[in-house]
């Protein structure tokens, strides 16, 4: 039951996207997100759409899994579509029913806005979350943000916290499972009654869980001290992130992609929003 919760959405594999350096992927994802917001006309969107489909193909992640990732967004997508459809006023009235007026501009807005949301999710998940392990992501973030250390931003500490959280989430989930079973065996009912009753039934789970989490934290801190941990200062890493020719190729491809989107924006801004 609880154990089935997966961490992040990482989908292990060895596609070219998986093999890129996490730092490259973080930067390219940022560029991608900016481009999705910058795109104005239908041709621009078409370029991004084609590029995203190509990335999905390159990632070798089954379409089923990608579509499943869109499911939580159905509400936002529907909401975006409806708002744009009904609230956009234009010149070209298509349809009127009482006070509801739908213009052709509204349809266009709705389609492009929905496309924007979907592209954002598809692109960032295929470029980053599906193809990068949480550890690589943490390492990449730490390295990219390391210049901020000069401004006294505790970058290393945040990365360490993320690593430890990732390490302990499965342990705590397992423990929650055990405590729930123990309480069930004593007749606590988690699945019936109103919201308040159910929330109350959670208290006997949360309290032992918190107590144990604090004990774990205490013991882990001592174990880390015994292993000579003293923060990021003077620390080396076994696995050093290394840029390869792949990162260069990916960056060059992205330069062309960016150029194509900007050119489409400037020269063929048909059906702009």
């Amino acid at each position, binding site marked *: 039951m609880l154990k089935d919760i997966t961490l992040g959405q990482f989908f292990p594999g060895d596609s070219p996207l998986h093999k890129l350096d996490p730092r490259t992927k973080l930067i390219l994802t940022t560029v991608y997100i900016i481009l999705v917001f910058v795109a104005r006309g239908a041709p621009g969107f078409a370029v991004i759409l084609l590029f995203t489909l190509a990335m999905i193909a390159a990632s070798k992640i089954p379409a089923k899994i990608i579509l499943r990732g869109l499911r939580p967004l159905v509400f936002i997508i529907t909401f975006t579509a409806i708002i744009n459809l009904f609230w956009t006023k234009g010149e070209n009235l298509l349809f009127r029913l009482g006070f509801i007026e739908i213009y052709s501009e509204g349809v266009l807005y709705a389609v492009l806005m929905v496309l924007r949301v979907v592209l954002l999710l598809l692109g960032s998940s295929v470029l980053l979350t599906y193809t990068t392990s949480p550890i690589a992501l943490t390492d990449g973030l730490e390295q990219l943000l390391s210049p901020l250390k000069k401004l006294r931003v505790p970058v290393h500490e945040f990365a360490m916290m993320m690593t430890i959280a990732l390490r302990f989430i499965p*342990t705590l989930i397992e423990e929650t499972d055990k405590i729930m079973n123990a309480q069930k065996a004593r007749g606590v009912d988690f699945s019936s009654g109103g919201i308040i009753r159910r929330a109350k039934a959670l208290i006997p789970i949360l309290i032992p869980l918190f107590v144990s989490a604090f004990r774990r934290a205490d013991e882990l801190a001592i174990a*880390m001290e015994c*292993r000579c941990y*003293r923060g990021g200062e003077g620390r080396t890493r076994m696995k050093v992130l290394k840029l390869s020719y792949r990162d260069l190729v990916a960056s060059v491809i992205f330069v062309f992609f960016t150029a194509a989107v900007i050119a489409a924006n400037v020269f063929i801004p048909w059906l702009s929003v």
Partner: protein
Amino acid sequence: MSGTPFIKAENLCFSYSIAEDGGLRRELPVIKNVSFEIGRGDFVAILGHNGSGKSTLAKLLNLILTPTSGKIYIDGRDITDPAITEDDIFEIRRKIGMVFQNPDNQLVATVVEEDVAFGPENLGIPPEEIRRRVNEALAIVGMSAYARHSPHQLSGGQKQRVAIAGIIAMLPECIVFDESTSMLDPSGRKEVMNTIVSLNRDRGITVLHITHNMDEAVLADRVIVINDGEIFLDGTPREVFSHVGELQSVGLDVPQVTELLYELSVDGIKMPDGSPLPRGVLSEEEGAEILRALL
């Protein structure tokens, strides 16, 4: 044992300072005027009932806790010297590694090999050297095949061996095991005990093994019994376990054979030639031999 002892404690005292109601602090003496020496390459078992101060003593040895008074020398160097630098402290923690009771609460990383690398990374060792040490440490504990697994997929005994590998990779001279087998099932215990014994026998690593398990204590060269913050008995397993009555008076068990022969001799049973029954018998074979002679 020649030259300076590896660990030497002189009149060591330690109290926890406990906050009480009204902002007052109360001192709780836990280690009381303890002195001992441990030689390089020794295998010492430390026994004592719950709350007798074993873990506290262990944490004093690598300066997780600072003694209230008394001296500790590691390798001839006074670590209680107030002039000690932070680098010295980390060098001591490298030399004296610690493995704790709960295997889950000492693994830091989400991948076995990354966890083993954690200690050497903290020491600032170059990447290639860390890689070499990690591979070697995993091979020593027999966990090379699991290098890429995530800790939560391993059994308790396997996790504990990974924790040991994480210490070995720092090239320690001594490892303190604080009840490291007590949460494991019998097969996990055996895996870990075999690893500990071979670290001592084959690699000359000094081992302090804190335990409640008498059968594990018997494997050591020397047993120190701690009661209420003081050293109660100290000697070879045979000597220590011949004091059955005293051990039971401080709430400790003795191995079953030892107890059986002790009870027989208390009941006035003697060897066929009239001599008293041997005391501190530890192995079942030896016990069986004596029983056969009696029958």
